[in-house]
């Protein structure tokens, strides 16, 4: 994609982003666990127009996943407790990964584990495959007992796991943080010093819903992860605080449904965004967002998305005062 002409009016803004060694034509990632391997959405969205798919998290051993029910609708959001159902890294490498070569977009692997060693082991094997452009480290899954999330809830553990994984791959490493912590900036700083190339901010908030007729939790796993527009204000602040603590790029996520939402994250300091739950409303949303971002930049005579990253406190004065929604 061209950088666009400098002439105002004729300008085609540049939406490409760089995350570590990764060059993405669009700043829109499909959030892990929400988009399968991309294949599932191919009939409904032109994958060549999205930035990247982050695959569903894979673990060392096969996992049955959590008992049903795994989903509950909540106000402006949803709870999920999938529990990392997946076939394990061996089967995955043998039967799944080769197919990813066919995707017309960048494919990012997601790794989950329950020990530092397993994080490194799975990452090493997965990152060795050419089909996988980068690795996202899911150290913040709230749906597998307390184990999975412990890593992203403790600066020390975060540092240890990121260092161990950094040692086994040169591919771009995105570390996914949890919002269920007292101080996300501290964890973000740890991940950066330990060698992360980028951060994904945020994974889901921990939550619970109770069936008041049956007197029991509505999720088989009792608690789950809250996503969707409900958590957007929490996510925007987490990105804002993490961005002030680190200088590596941030993939902002949590409740993004349209370009206006996405712009909140860019202005807060995200270099790219991920879209999860909104794909469940309409799989055309990621592509609409790209179109609207382009229009937003063009209308303001801006040449690149990079020009707005982290500018939440700058103030964009007249003559460019717009009212109403973007687009």
């Amino acid at each position, binding site marked *: 994609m061209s950088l666009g002409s400098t002439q105002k009016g004729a300008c085609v803004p540049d939406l490409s982003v760089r995350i570590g060694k990764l060059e993405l034509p669009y700043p829109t990632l499909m959030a892990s666990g929400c988009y*399968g391997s991309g294949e599932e*959405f191919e009939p409904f969205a032109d994958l060549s127009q999205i930035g990247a798919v982050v695959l569903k998290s894979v673990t060392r051993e*096969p996992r*049955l996943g959590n008992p049903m029910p795994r*989903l509950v*609708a909540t106000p402006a959001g949803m709870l999920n407790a999938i529990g990392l159902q997946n076939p394990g890294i061996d*089967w995955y490498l043998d039967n799944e990964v080769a197919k990813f070569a066919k995707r017309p977009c960048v494919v990012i692997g997601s790794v989950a584990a329950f020990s530092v060693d397993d994080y490194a082991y799975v990452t090493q094997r997965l990152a060795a495959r050419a089909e996988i452009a980068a690795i996202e480290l899911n150290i913040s899954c709230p749906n597998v007992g307390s184990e999975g999330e412990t890593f992203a809830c403790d600066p020390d553990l975060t540092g240890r796991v990121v260092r161990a994984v950094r040692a086994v791959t040169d591919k771009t490493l995105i570390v996914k943080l949890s919002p269920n912590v007292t101080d996300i900036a501290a964890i973000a700083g740890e991940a950066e010093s330990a060698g992360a190339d980028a951060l994904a901010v945020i994974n889901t908030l921990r939550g619970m819903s109770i069936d008041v007729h049956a007197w029991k939790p509505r999720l088989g796993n009792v608690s789950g992860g809250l996503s969707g527009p409900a958590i957007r204000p929490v996510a925007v602040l987490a990105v804002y605080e993490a961005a002030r603590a680190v200088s590596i790029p941030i993939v902002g996520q949590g409740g993004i449904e349209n370009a206006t939402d996405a712009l909140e994250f860019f202005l807060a300091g995200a270099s790219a965004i991920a879209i999860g739950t909104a794909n*469940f409303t309409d799989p055309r949303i990621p592509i609409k967002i790209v179109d609207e971002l382009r229009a937003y930049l063009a209308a303001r005579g801006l040449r690149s998305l990079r020009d707005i990253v982290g500018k939440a406190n700058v103030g964009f004065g007249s003559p460019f005062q717009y009212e109403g929604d973007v687009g």
Partner: protein
Amino acid sequence: MLAGPSVRDVVVLDRTELAPGVVLLGFYAPELVAVTRPGQFVMAVPPGGERAATALAIYEAQGERASFLFFVCGARTRELAELRHGDKLSLTGPLGNGFTFAGARDVAIVAGGVGIASVLLPAQMLVEAGARVRLFYGARSVDFLVDRDRFATAGCELCCATNDGSLGHRGFITELLAAAEDKPDLILACGPSPMLRATAFVASELGVPAQLALEEAFACGVGGCWGCVVPLDRASPQAPKFPKPAGDDGFVYARVCKEGPVFWAHELRW
């Protein structure tokens, strides 16, 4: 076979309230009609909608018009119920694997409440193919036994049950199924979980194979999130071919939206 699912905006043609809270919503969608098979569903959302899509069975599918039949039970169905002629609606589908009934000669269809929405298409196709079709239709009361005429007109024999006895048998529809004189050679069912479980039980007692259309909560509807699962026998042809984890007891979680929504009763492990 699963030809041409897609996402598109369609326009509402008609809207009728068949019973309190039970809405029939017709819309213009010739391409959807062309590729829909009985038992499939779509993910539906009003445009500019703020909520996740709702899974809805395709009730009618003829010519240029398809329809939904749904019960208003929460925020999403409430929003859908507010649509009127000319309003737009975004649909992703058709999705899932439908019923398979090739060669069946005597079919019992069991429907509970809005479960009726999944069984009009198979009933019509079966009658057309020359099969005998008995509809075992249960609901709270006669008012909620909606659209019975259409099934009668389509050539089904109707056996009804209501909780309050306002029409037909007072009690559960599966009691009628169990008491039926001639044994069907296939059972298709859609309705609330307790009814489906009872149907599975009766079918196994009778020794008749049964296909159940399940209605779990969905998120993506397309197999991307693994949220809508049910435990399925690993030996089922529909079971995901994942390796067994340690401590596995013979089942694997299958996605209702992708491997289903229709499963063989004897393969479900719930």
